C-alpha cells in the first residue's frame, strides 16, 4: 500500500511527486499515457510568467509570483533550461496605455517587483522587430521561458531517484474508499491501495473525481489553443516574450522565443466539448497570422516547421481548485490548473504538501534535490567533445542533423529510469526530429537505434502510444 498515489504525471503531478519524495512516505505516480508529460504540459507557451495577469487575491496570482522565483532554484537543482527573456505587454494607443496602467497596478498588488514602462524608442531599441504601431510597453524583466516537458521529466526523475514509483499506461478506472484505504483500479484490471490520493489529472480532473465523488465541485471546460512553431534559424529575431493586452478569453496571441532558438506564435482560445481533440484549423492559424502583425514585424512564416494545439483545463471555479474532498478525507483535488499552471506548478506542490495535506510528514535525511542532466554534445566545446568521444564513440554518429543530436544522446533518452522507447518520447527527451525536416531524415535511424537497444523488431517501435507502430507490415514475409 502506498502512502500517496498521484494521478497524472503532468507538470503539476510531477512537481508534487518531487515535493513528497523529500519525506519518508511512499509515492506512486500513475499516468494513463505511454510517457510522462502529455497534454497541457507539452502544448503550452513555455512561459514562466511574472504574475501581471491573474486576478488579485487568487491562488493563480499568488502561485504565479512564487513559482516564478522557485524556477530559479529549480534551474540550479534540476539543470532545466531557463531563458531569461523578460516580457513586454504592448499598447497601440491611449486607451490601451490606460489598460497597461491597470495591469501595472495589478502586477504590483500581486507582488511583482520588477516592472517598468518603456516608451516606443526604448522598447524598439531593445526589440527592433516590434510592430511600428506600438506606442508604449510594460516591461516585465522577471518573465522567463523554459522547456516544459523537460521540467516535468526532471521533477519525476528526481522523485524516482528519491524513492518514488512511476507507472505509465495506467488509466484510473475506478476509485473506492474502503474504511481508511483507497482502492484505485487501473485499466479495469489491477487494484492498488493507498492511504491518500492526489488527483492532478489535468483535463480529466472532473472525470477522475467523479469516479469517487457524487458532487464534484467544479467542471472542466476544455479550451483549445493553437500555435505555430518557427525553426530555430529565427533565433535573435525576437528577444522578449511579447503579449498583447489580455481579454476575457485569455492573454491573447503571443510571440514567444523558446529555449532552443525557436519562436512560438499563439495561442488562440476556443471553447469546445471534446477533451482530447487538439486539432489545428485554418481559422485558428489564420487568426494567429493576423494577430501577431499587431505585435511584431518581419515574422518569417516561410520558416514555420510545425503547428500544434493544446487543450487547457479551464474550470468553472475560475481559480486553481486545490482542496481536500468534501466527501472523502485524504482525497485531494488539484484541478483547473490552466494558465499560469506551468509557472505555478512548484508553488502548487509546496502549498498542497505544506498547507493542505495536514499530515505529519518527516523529512528524509538523504533526500537529494539534485538531478544531473546528460550532456548535449553540440553545446560543448571541442575539447570536452573529444573527452566524451573517447568514452563513447557513439557521440560521433550524428543522427538528427537539423538539431545536431548524436546517437549517444538518443541512447540516453531510451535508457534510464524515465527512458522511453517511442519516436515521440525520444523527440521529447533528445530533441531529435524537432527541426527543419521534422524527422524526415532521422526517424528511420532512430527507429533502428530503438529497436536495437530494446531488442525489438522495427515494426514493434511505436510512434507514441502503445499500438502506434510507425511501420505497419514487413513485406514478403510468410504469415
Amino acid at each position, binding site marked *: 500500500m502506498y502512502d500517496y498515489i498521484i494521478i497524472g504525471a503532468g507538470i503539476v503531478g510531477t512537481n508534487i511527486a518531487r515535493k513528497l519524495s523529500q519525506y519518508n512516505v511512499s509515492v506512486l505516480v500513475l499516468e494513463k499515457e505511454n510517457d510522462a508529460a502529455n497534454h497541457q504540459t507539452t502544448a503550452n507557451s513555455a512561459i514562466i510568467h511574472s504574475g501581471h495577469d491573474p486576478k488579485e487575491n487568487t491562488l493563480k496570482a499568488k502561485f504565479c509570483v512564487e513559482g516564478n522565483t522557485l524556477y530559479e532554484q529549480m534551474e540550479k537543482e534540476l539543470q532545466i533550461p531557463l531563458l531569461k527573456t523578460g516580457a513586454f505587454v504592448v499598447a497601440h494607443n491611449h486607451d490601451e496605455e490606460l489598460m497597461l496602467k491597470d495591469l501595472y497596478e495589478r502586477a504590483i498588488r500581486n507582488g511583482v517587483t520588477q516592472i517598468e514602462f518603456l516608451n516606443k524608442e526604448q522598447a524598439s531599441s531593445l526589440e527592433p522587430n516590434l510592430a511600428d504601431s506600438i506606442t508604449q510597453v510594460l516591461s516585465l524583466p522577471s518573465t522567463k521561458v523554459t522547456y516544459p516537458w523537460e521540467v516535468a521529466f526532471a521533477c519525476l526523475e528526481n522523485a524516482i531517484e528519491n524513492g518514488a514509483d512511476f507507472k505509465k499506461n495506467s488509466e484510473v478506472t475506478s476509485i473506492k474508499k474502503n474504511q481508511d484505504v483507497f482502492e484505485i483500479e487501473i485499466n479495469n484490471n489491477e487494484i492498488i491501495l493507498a492511504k491518500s490520493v492526489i488527483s492532478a489529472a489535468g483535463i480529466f480532473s472532473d472525470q477522475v473525481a467523479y469516479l469517487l465523488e457524487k458532487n464534484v465541485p467544479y467542471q472542466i471546460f476544455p479550451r483549445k489553443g493553437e500555435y505555430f512553431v518557427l525553426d530555430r*534559424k529565427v533565433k535573435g529575431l525576437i528577444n522578449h516574450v511579447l503579449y498583447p493586452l489580455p481579454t476575457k478569453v485569455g492573454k491573447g496571441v503571443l510571440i514567444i522565443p523558446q529555449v532552443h532558438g525557436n519562436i512560438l506564435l499563439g495561442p488562440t482560445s476556443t471553447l469546445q466539448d471534446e477533451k482530447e481533440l*487538439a*486539432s*489545428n484549423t485554418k481559422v485558428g492559424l489564420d487568426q494567429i497570422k493576423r494577430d501577431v502583425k499587431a505585435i511584431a514585424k518581419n515574422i518569417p512564416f516561410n520558416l514555420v516547421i510545425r503547428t500544434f494545439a493544446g487543450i487547457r483545463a479551464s474550470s468553472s471555479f475560475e481559480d486553481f481548485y486545490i482542496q481536500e474532498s468534501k466527501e472523502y478525507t485524504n482525497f485531494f483535488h488539484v484541478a483547473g490548473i490552466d494558465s499560469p499552471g506551468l509557472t505555478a506548478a512548484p508553488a502548487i506542490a509546496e502549498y498542497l504538501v505544506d498547507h493542505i495535506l495536514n499530515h505529519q510528514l518527516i523529512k528524509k535525511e538523504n533526500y537529494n534535490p539534485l538531478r544531473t542532466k546528460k550532456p548535449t554534445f553540440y553545446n560543448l566545446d571541442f575539447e570536452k567533445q573529444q573527452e566524451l568521444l573517447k568514452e563513447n*564513440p557513439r557521440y*560521433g554518429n550524428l543522427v538528427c542533423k537539423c538539431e545536431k543530436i548524436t546517437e549517444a544522446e538518443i541512447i540516453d533518452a531510451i535508457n534510464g529510469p524515465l527512458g522511453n522507447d517511442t519516436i515521440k518520447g525520444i523527440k521529447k527527451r533528445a530533441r531529435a526530429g524537432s527541426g527543419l525536416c521534422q524527422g524526415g531524415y532521422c526517424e528511420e535511424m532512430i527507429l533502428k537505434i530503438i529497436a536495437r537497444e530494446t531488442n525489438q523488431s522495427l515494426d514493434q517501435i511505436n510512434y507514441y502510444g502503445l499500438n502506434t507502430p510507425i511501420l*505497419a507490415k514487413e513485406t514478403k514475409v510468410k504469415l
Partner: protein
Amino acid sequence: MIKDLVIIGGGAAGLAAALSANDPKIDILVIERERELGGILNQCIHNGFGLHVFKEELTGPEYSARYMDEFMNLNIEFLLNTTVVDVKKNDDFELTVSSFDQGLFKIQSKAVILSTGCYERTRGSITLPGERPKGIMPAGSAQRYLNIDGYLVGKSVFILGSGDIGLIMARRMTLEGAKVLGVAEIMPYSNGLTRNIVQCLHDYDIPLYLSHTVTDIKGKDRLEQITIQEVDQNFNPIENTQKVFDVDTLLLSVGLIPDISLFDSLEFIKDPMTKSAIVNQYYETNVQGLFVCGNALHVHDLVDYVSIESEKAGKSAQNYILNLNSKTKSNNVHEIKYNEKIRYVVPQLIDFQSINAPIDFSFRVTKKMEKAIFTVIQNNQVIYTKKAKHLAPAEMEKITVKPEMLIDQSQISILLEEVLT
C-alpha cells in the same frame, strides 16, 4: 586533415562532380553520410533514368552504378557514415566532420562542392490542419522504408501531391499490398509525367482529384480519416465539396527543398526562387571556392541533368584549384534578367572575365505553354532565338548560349513569350 577539394554528398551530383574534378594534382575527398554511395538513387528502384546520358532507360540503382563503378576505378578517396557538422572559411575552408569510426575532426580544404541534395517539405511547413496522429509522412520516407528496409508504412493510403514521387509511391505501395484510395493535387493539372499518371494511377484505378487538397485529419494516436476539398483559383477550399477517406496513412509529395542549412553560417547569397545559392556559369557562389550542384542548387526532375550540371561544377572546381595562385577577382559579373514567364534561371550570373565554353541555362517556366519562343537579348540586340514546345513548370528546360553569340560583356536577358495559334 588537409585536402584540395571536399565534395559533400556522394549521390548523383557528388559522384559526377568527383569524376570530372579528378586530376593527379588534386587531392579529393568525398564525404557521404549514408552507409553507401549513390544517394537518393538507391531507393529509386523504378525506371526512367539515363535516357539522355546513356540513351538507355535505367532504374535508379543502375544509373548510380554507372558512376560508382568509374568512381571506384579511379580510387578517389571517400568516407561513408560521415557527416559534415560545420563549415567555416578564412582563406581555406575548415570543415568539422563527425563519424562513429573517426570521431569529431577537422578538414581543411581549398575548395568545397556542396552536393547534398534536397529534403522533403513537411506537413508543418504547408500547415495542414487537423490532428497530429502517426501515419503522416513524406512520400520519400515511405519509399525508403519500403525499398531499402522492406516495410510498408500503412495498409490504406491517401497521397497528397501528384508530382512523380507521389505517383511512383501510389504504384509501389499498391504492388506491395497496400490499398491506395486516391491522390489529391491542389493545382488543376498534375505535376508528374503523363506516363506516370497512366502507369501508376490509371493502371490501378487510383483516382486523381485535381484542384483538391487535404482540409482535415482525424485520429488521436493513429491516423483514421482524412478529408479533401476542392479549391478555387486562390487555393481556398470550396464549401460542401468535402470527400472523406478512411486511411491509416497520408503520404505527402508536396515539394522538395535544397538541403543547404549547413552553409548558412557562410552567408552565401541566395535566390528566393530556387531557395539555394546564386551561382555563376562555373557553379561557384559568391563565397570563393564554394561550388554547388545538383538538387542542392535547384530541384531537378531528371537525374541526367544533375549529372551534366555536376560534371561542369567538378571541372570548375578543378580549374579553380589548379589556378588558385593566378585567380583574380572578377569585376565583370552580370545577373541574368528574365521575364515573368520564367520562374528562375540557373546559373543566375555570368562572369564575363573568361567565357570559353557554351553556357547551359536551366530554367523553369511559370505556366504550361504549348508553343513558345525564347529570345536572348544583349545590349538591346537579339543574339539568339529558339522555339519551344510543350513547356510545363514541372519540366526543367535548357537553353544554351554559345560564346560566339555574345556581342559584348554586358548583361543578358532571356525572354519567353507564348505563341498562341
